[in-house]
């Protein structure tokens, strides 16, 4: 693992934060808060112990210590499920690493490169809420 990551280039959803929607990023991302939606990253996702995620995660590498309520991982390289994590959903990966005490409910299957490209190109389900210029409630 490369430890010489510039922290200023890492996006971060901290604890005490909730996000709903789509994230696209070229760099690494760390999640400690609540995430609901679709994450498409060309780098690594690190989900902390308190992270609660829901939805599709499309990433190069994933280190997961949090909780995935319902969703799908598409990991082009290594999916690493850390001790204490809890995952419900489908896991697609090239390489898989699971620590003792990782709770997994769902399906596991290897992912080919073309399948990954297809998943990454899929259109997001979520859309941004319109600006409330008109004062309209959601």
């Amino acid at each position, binding site marked *: 693992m490369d430890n010489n990551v510039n922290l200023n280039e890492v996006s971060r959803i*901290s604890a005490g934060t909730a996000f*709903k929607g789509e*994230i*696209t990023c*070229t*760099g690494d*991302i760390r999640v400690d808060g609540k995430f609901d939606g679709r994450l498409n990253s060309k780098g690594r996702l690190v989900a902390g112990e308190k992270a609660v995620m829901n939805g599709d995660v499309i990433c190069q590498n994933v280190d997961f210590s949090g909780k995935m309520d319902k969703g799908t991982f598409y990991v082009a390289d290594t999916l690493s499920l850390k001790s204490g994590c809890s995952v419900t959903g489908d896991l697609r990966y090239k390489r898989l690493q699971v620590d003792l005490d990782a709770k997994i409910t769902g399906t596991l299957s290897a992912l080919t490169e073309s399948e990954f490209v297809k998943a990454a190109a899929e259109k997001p389900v979520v859309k*941004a809420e319109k*600006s409330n210029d008109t004062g309209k409630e959601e």
Partner: protein
Amino acid sequence: MILGKKNNVSEETFKNEQKIMATTPIPSNNMNDVNRIALGTKLVGDMASENDIRIDGDFEGRLYCAGRLVVGEKAVLKGDFYCADIDFSGTMKGGNIYAKQTLSLKSGCTIEGNLFFQRFQVELDSRFTGACKVIGEAEFNKVSAPVSAMLK
């Protein structure tokens, strides 16, 4: 005993101070508490946070921040933003900014949209097209309620 005792005053003061200390949020100087949307990252959707947020990438949607929002020079925003304090150096392409307290436009920023705030500061070389209005805390809480509800 609630009644009587004259020296209750100091005890009460002490208790009050303790209460204030317990309920006052510690300013989140911890780097790990700050949300960061780095350059090269794009968020579309709704986000709500108790902590500070720094944006250098793109954000489109609605954002609630109980702390300070810092918008970097290269950031591009669109949508509605509800924050306690804002330092804005980036670009805003349509939408509204609501500041519970201070909105500060930094030199070089570009804003197309409407601004609502309690206190306002503009540096030279800020470009701003839109309307502005002073709002109170009650109005801020009202307009931000749909997004801040995400934290519950």
